[in-house]
């Protein structure tokens, strides 16, 4: 039976060359022009400084003990950050997607907020907590690896919650019930039935979180102090401060190696677990939280502890501080000031103008990343018959994850040398037009990772039946894949929007002063002295957080209404 099953799932429909050709060419072209080319150009510039190939950078960088310390720290913090994100994310995913309770939508939105807060704000918020005089000063987390890991988990736990939760709420509960009826206790049911079914989503989320942790920049810089650094921070310093492209190129390649290795491991884990799951309506699977069930009470308490300890505490600090006036009294002064350009005109635009710009750019970035990411997910979800094509598909999958693992600085500086010709009289580098594109490059992997598990979990027999019933490949996509994937597309939209709203690295290089986004103005405000500017920066951060939470909640609501009638 097993062998039969595998064969069945591998079978695919006869390919429509034009359709699939386009589906592969568009994303590849996009990635090529706006990611691979700039990065390659900058790396090559590092190895060919004066027209002659110079690889001595390798020996210099690789023989330096500092390099290996940075590699070690990068791996350590990324592994720990990923492990704890998964560990804490699973109970939250269960609570928020398998159980229902009043206010669940709000908590779901809240959990996403950290993900999009600018690193500089989060860094300062956590440092304030960890500093000797801070609320958590007694823990001694200042300038420690533990402190960095806590912040990384704060940022990334929502990736796990969302990705795993999205699949979890649609797992057929009857499989678990069957196992339970066979005498398996809750722990055994979880270990033997639930976890293996969730594995693709967990592997998927873990891969994304690992990339985010391994390339974390602002958090490491602020919380790690001078003693902690990663390959990413070193690339930033080498590139922007020293213009030492020789070392930066070597480090970029090392970073790529680390990232590709991690991706390969996760892809292997995912493939081993890949199976067509029986998905059901999300509505039917969530049960009301019951205070009589010890299991529910435990999960609810654990979940509450995580949400309060990890998220509410740092964010509450932010909110309360944003409500404090320069003279120490409480009030909305900082929010009123958002209509201005700050104390002594710290900004070129008001914060509200920046918020409008942010929304406009995020909209464009979301559309781009949904189109490109959707196509990638579609292609990658298929299992072609030939081994060569299967390998090509999984390579494509990995390729589109790479933008998460490459420094925004490398991409930003790469743009400067590759986009050096005006297009229709517009210099793309200084026009601000590249901002949504750069944000989309970062959002695409998230779209792919969100949509892909659901597409892959669609029983291939549905497509086969549809084809036999007279649907060509296009109609199969429209009537089978699309409606089923729609739920995750809603989620992907929210994610893409959120990532775009919060992106700072590439945006800071490419946005014009009059086209500054919220994170950019927050960064500028916090970079100026003056209690009023600091208060405004925090108020603007709260605005960004609320904006993001709202977007995520709306995306989720829209999605429910669209799918609700039929699911």
């Amino acid at each position, binding site marked *: 039976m097993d062998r039969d099953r595998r064969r069945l799932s591998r079978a695919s429909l006869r390919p429509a060359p034009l359709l699939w050709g386009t589906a592969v060419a568009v994303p590849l072209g996009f990635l090529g022009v706006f990611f691979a080319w700039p990065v390659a150009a900058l790396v090559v510039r590092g190895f060919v400084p004066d027209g002659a190939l110079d690889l001595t950078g390798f020996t210099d960088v690789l023989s330096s003990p500092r390099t290996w310390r940075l590699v070690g720290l990068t791996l350590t913090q990324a592994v720990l950050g990923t492990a704890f994100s998964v560990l804490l994310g699973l109970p939250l995913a269960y609570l928020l997607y398998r159980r229902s309770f009043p206010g669940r939508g709000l908590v779901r939105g809240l959990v996403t907020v950290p993900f999009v807060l600018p690193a500089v704000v989060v860094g300062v918020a956590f440092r304030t907590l960890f500093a000797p005089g801070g609320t958590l000063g007694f823990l001694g987390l200042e300038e420690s690896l533990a402190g960095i890991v806590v912040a990384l988990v704060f940022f990334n736990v929502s990736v796990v919650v969302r990705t795993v939760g999205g699949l979890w709420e649609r797992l057929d509960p009857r499989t678990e019930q069957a196992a339970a009826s066979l005498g398996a206790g809750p722990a055994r049911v979880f270990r033997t039935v639930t976890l293996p079914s969730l594995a693709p989503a967990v592997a998927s989320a873990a891969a994304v979180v690992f990339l985010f942790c391994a390339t974390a920049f602002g958090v490491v810089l602020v919380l790690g102090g001078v003693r902690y650094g990663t390959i990413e921070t070193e690339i930033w310093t080498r590139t922007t401060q020293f213009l030492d492209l020789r070392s930066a190129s070597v480090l970029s390649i090392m970073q790529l190696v680390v990232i590709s290795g991690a991706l390969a491991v996760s892809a292997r884990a995912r493939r081993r677990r890949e199976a067509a799951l029986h998905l059901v309506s999300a509505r039917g699977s969530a049960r009301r939280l019951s205070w009589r069930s010890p299991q529910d009470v435990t999960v609810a308490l654990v979940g509450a502890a995580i949400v309060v300890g990890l998220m509410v505490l740092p964010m509450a600090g932010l909110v309360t501080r944003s409500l404090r006036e320069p003279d120490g009294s409480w009030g909305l002064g900082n929010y009123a000031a958002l209509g201005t350009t700050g104390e002594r005109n710290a900004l070129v635009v008001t914060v509200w103008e920046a918020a409008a710009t942010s929304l406009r750019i995020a909209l464009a970035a979301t559309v781009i990343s949904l189109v490109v990411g959707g196509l990638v997910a579609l292609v990658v979800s298929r299992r072609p018959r030939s081994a060569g094509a299967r390998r090509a598909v999984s390579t494509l999958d990995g390729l589109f994850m790479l933008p998460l693992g490459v420094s925004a600085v490398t991409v930003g500086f790469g743009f400067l040398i590759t986009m050096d010709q005006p297009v229709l009289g517009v210099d793309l580098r200084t*026009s601000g037009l590249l901002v949504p594109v750069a944000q989309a490059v970062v959002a695409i992997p998230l779209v792919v990772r969100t949509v892909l598990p659901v597409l892959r979990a669609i029983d291939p027999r549905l497509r086969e039946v549809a084809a036999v019933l007279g649907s060509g490949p296009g109609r199969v996509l429209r009537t089978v894949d699309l409606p089923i994937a729609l739920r995750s597309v809603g989620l992907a939209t929210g994610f893409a929007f959120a990532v775009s709203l919060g992106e700072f690295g590439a945006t800071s290089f490419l946005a014009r002063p009059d086209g500054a986004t919220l994170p950019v103005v927050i960064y500028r405000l916090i970079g100026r002295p003056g209690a009023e500017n600091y208060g405004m920066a925090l108020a603007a951060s709260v605005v960004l957080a609320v904006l993001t939470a709202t977007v995520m909640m709306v995306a989720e609501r829209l999605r429910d209404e669209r799918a609700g009638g039929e699911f």
Partner: protein
Amino acid sequence: MLRLSGAHAGTIQAGTVAGAAAVALLLAGCGGGSGSGDSGSDGSDPAASGTVTLVTHDSWALDEKLVEGFEEESGLTVEVSAAGDAGTLVNQLVLTKDSPLGDAVFGIDNTFASRALEAGVVEEYTPADLPEGAEQLGGALTPIDQGDVCVNADEAWFEKSDLDVPRTLEDLADPEYQDLLVVSNPATSSPGLAFLLATVGAFGENGFEDYWASLADNGVKVADSWEDAYYVDFSGAGEGGERPLVLSYATSPAFTVTEDGTGTTTSALLETCFRQVEYAGVLAGSDNPEGAQALVDFLLSADVQAALPESMYMYPADSSVELPKDWQKFAPQAEAPFEVEPAEVSEHRDEWIERWTETVVG
């Protein structure tokens, strides 16, 4: 479109341009800031229609009205592009030397000036009415403003602790002031680098490491950025920090003026300062060098010079311009800041930072 027929037309990869053009069209309506694509939509040569692009760092914040006034007067259209911090700005200019990001630059400071001059990113240009005391670099970089990076003290803290406020660099290494100072990392922050240069200026190329070793023994704390040091660690920012001495600017005390406006709660130690000078220039290979020159002149005009303290937190290069009242009162400049020759800085900066890292971080 005319720009396509310029000097670099031969190197254009047609496919790329087509792809990028498609994206540009796609985004034209929803992407960048206001005015993006203006130069393209009317199909005319940007130089002929008088667009001049100013490349600057992310602290640029000149009043829009001043810029609009300049545009009206000169008939030029000014576009501003911000590249990151001062170091990033210069490095980007060096990287894009063959195809400059704009026509004029503002914000190259004296710690990065030599790198810019050596790479030839700026063209020689000397404004007709260079103010007195303003010294050009290499005949191409014109000073626009300046500011002192100095250690700041939380006056109230010292009063409460019954301790004299330190004055000199040597004082900071005095055990009396143990665990009181926080500075920022010279590898990642521009004031951090300036302060390192102050110590090089004070103790010499061979003596600064010993000084820093004594600072480290005295418990100096190093944050990665100015904002981190100032807002989290400095007690005078009112955010719960615990250290009363912080590396900041001579102008910072003007931001801690008390409600009644009679005093300030912090002060700058004027014997610990390094002077940062910011320059402007015409970018080599500019499409509109005349416009760029006009822009440099504009930055030196009395109106802009007078507006600099309020908008950029810097002292104007033109010493004849009157300073705001609270600056006169609370933010005096250092009389004899430490100095290091720009050429020296350019040659040794990376090495000094590495030596500093070894001494302080280990």
